[in-house]
């Protein structure tokens, strides 16, 4: 009995020592469990993330003392901000009425949308600035930011609604010729029109209709359109000189494809897409995926269709991948089509050979207007020249079978470039240049094919 009691006293003594050691070490700064160490490292990571950003977007919800309201009939504190680009999204938590969002390196150069989410996980509003009497801009076009700008202060954010959903209107508009995002008025309107389809998603981001903001569910459902256009005629040309292409007054649509992406689980899926009932023309000639094309997940459209898509509900059946039925209420489609950027090319010919192509960018609905700054809108450009029966030349070189019979190593062309020197010296204008395709990805997530033929 005495031995058992002694044993227990020993146990108590050991446990007491252990307890004291535990308390001492924890007070000395030791982390309790590995999760404690991870917590500390998360703080370091978040500081690194903030420091790595060259640009912060800030603002507040209180201003002169008004509460952070969602809209007049509902009050909610803003707790999260979803930061959206055309090909990614993230959700930042905020803990006060002031916010400061770091814009990461890979977000600069893209349009960035902000969706404010309240403590009920409802959309308080999507950032919206006025571009014109008929156009609003729902993404900040960080495709062009003035040198040295490290902060954009949107100041007081006011919440309200418009026809398409909840909006968040900043007191300060940073987009303007002499502002942090130095877009001319024409460029600002153009950006507003080009991004209307995405803007409509951001205003009501519950595409799977389950009552929860998609971004909170770690989802971003996006729809876009890819166009192929016949824009005009190549000049007859001559042996020596510079010759400009003729641009048709009316665009001819070669075809389009709907481009539906589901982030972050980006996988190639083949999902059925139902067009709005008002689109009565032939469509659906292709439903599938292109494994080789990183820009496309699901697409559908008339291969040879000549009628552009219309506004309305595009329904994607994503039940097969557990995402339910996705309803995209597309608006501003005609604006997007009208505002497609095209190149107005000039061909430099010497000795009957094409030496160089130079160009300016124009908005299709404003050919007489000033040239558009391609660096603000165009990500990359590829030029493909076809002979009578096959491809004669690619600006990007290419590998078989995607290669011209006048092949070379190739080069990349960016939106800021205004000319391309032909990489071979034997590209005959008369024999090898029957059609030219300019294919570009804009900085707003759209791909456009612009064709000229003789």
């Amino acid at each position, binding site marked *: 009995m005495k031995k*058992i009691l002694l*044993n*227990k006293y*020993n*146990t*108590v003594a*050991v*446990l007491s020592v*252990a*307890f004291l*050691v*535990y308390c001492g*070490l*924890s007070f000395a*700064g*030791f*982390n*309790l*469990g*590995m*999760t*404690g*160490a*991870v*917590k*500390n*490292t*998360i*703080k*370091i*990571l*978040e500081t*690194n*993330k*903030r420091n*790595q950003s060259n640009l912060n977007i800030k603002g507040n919800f209180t201003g002169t003392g008004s509460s952070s309201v969602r809209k007049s009939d509902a009050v909610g504190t803003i707790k999260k901000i979803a930061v959206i680009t055309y090909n*990614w999204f*993230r959700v*930042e*938590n905020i*803990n006060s009425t002031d916010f400061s969002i*770091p814009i*990461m*390196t*890979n977000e600069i150069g893209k349009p960035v949308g902000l969706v404010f989410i309240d403590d009920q996980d409802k959309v308080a509003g999507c950032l919206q600035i006025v571009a014109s009497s008929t156009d609003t801009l729902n993404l900040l076009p960080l495709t062009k930011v003035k040198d040295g700008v490290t902060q954009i202060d949107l100041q007081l954010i006011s919440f309200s609604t418009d026809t398409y959903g909840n909006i968040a209107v900043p007191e300060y508009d940073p987009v303007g010729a002499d502002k942090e995002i130095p877009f001319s008025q024409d460029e600002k309107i153009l950006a507003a029109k080009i991004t209307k389809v995405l803007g409509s998603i951001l205003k009501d981001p519950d595409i799977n209709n389950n009552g929860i903001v998609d971004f909170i569910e770690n989802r971003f459902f996006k729809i876009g359109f890819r166009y192929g256009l016949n824009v005009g005629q190549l000049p007859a040309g001559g042996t020596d000189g510079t010759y400009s292409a003729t641009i048709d007054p009316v665009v001819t649509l070669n075809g389009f494809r709907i481009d539906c992406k589901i982030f972050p689980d980006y996988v190639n899926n083949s999902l059925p897409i139902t067009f709005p009932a008002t689109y009565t023309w032939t469509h659906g000639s292709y439903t599938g995926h292109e494994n080789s094309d990183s820009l496309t997940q699901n697409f559908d459209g008339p291969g040879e269709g000549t009628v552009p898509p219309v506004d309305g509900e595009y329904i994607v059946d994503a039940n097969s991948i557990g995402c339910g039925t996705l309803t995209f209420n597309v608006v501003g489609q005609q604006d997007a089509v009208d505002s497609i950027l095209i190149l107005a090319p000039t061909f430099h010919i010497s000795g009957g050979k094409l030496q160089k192509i130079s160009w300016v960018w124009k908005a299709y609905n404003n050919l007489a207007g000033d040239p558009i700054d391609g660096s603000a809108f165009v990500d990359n450009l590829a030029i493909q020249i076809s002979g009578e029966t096959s491809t004669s030349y690619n600006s990007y070189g290419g590998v078989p079978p995607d290669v011209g019979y006048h092949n070379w190593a190739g080069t990349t062309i960016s939106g800021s470039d205004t000319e391309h020197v032909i990489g071979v010296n034997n590209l005959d204008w008369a024999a090898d240049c029957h059609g030219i395709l300019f294919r570009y990805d804009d900085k707003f997530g759209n791909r456009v094919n612009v064709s000229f033929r003789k």
Partner: protein
Amino acid sequence: MKRICCLILIIFTLISFSPGIIVFGEDNKGKIGIGLNYPGFSVRYFKSDRTAWEAKLQTETNILVVGARLNKYSNLRSNNKIQIIKGLEVDLVSFKGDTAEGYGMAAEVFLGGEYSISNKLSLQLDFGPALVFLMDRDYKDVKANSLEFVLNLGINWYLRGK
């Protein structure tokens, strides 16, 4: 701290009902133990009398740590009730912070002791430096390395002893 006090209270309660028989002997091989540590649990298996492999999981709000430990046991002054443990721990980490979400790894060398409370139950305390590496899921160039000091407290319940 409240949780720690509760844990201690539970241990003391268990002691009062325990016969106080030594857990560790020279024949540990094959023993299996289930551990409750702050903040998670583990399962260990004695591969030999002095070596135990351990799988562990720890979780807190928006943090998950899953890992493995190698525990090397040695006696303290021939007293089998207290064992010195030294070893290595390697973990995989996933996390979601205020402005970052991602994953990473952690590695720790530790030193501590395990005290047998009964023939089935023991208390373990160990500590050591840990290197934690985390990476943002969305921005692969956003990373953090940190040298942290970790303190582990837990109780082990041995299902089977030879």
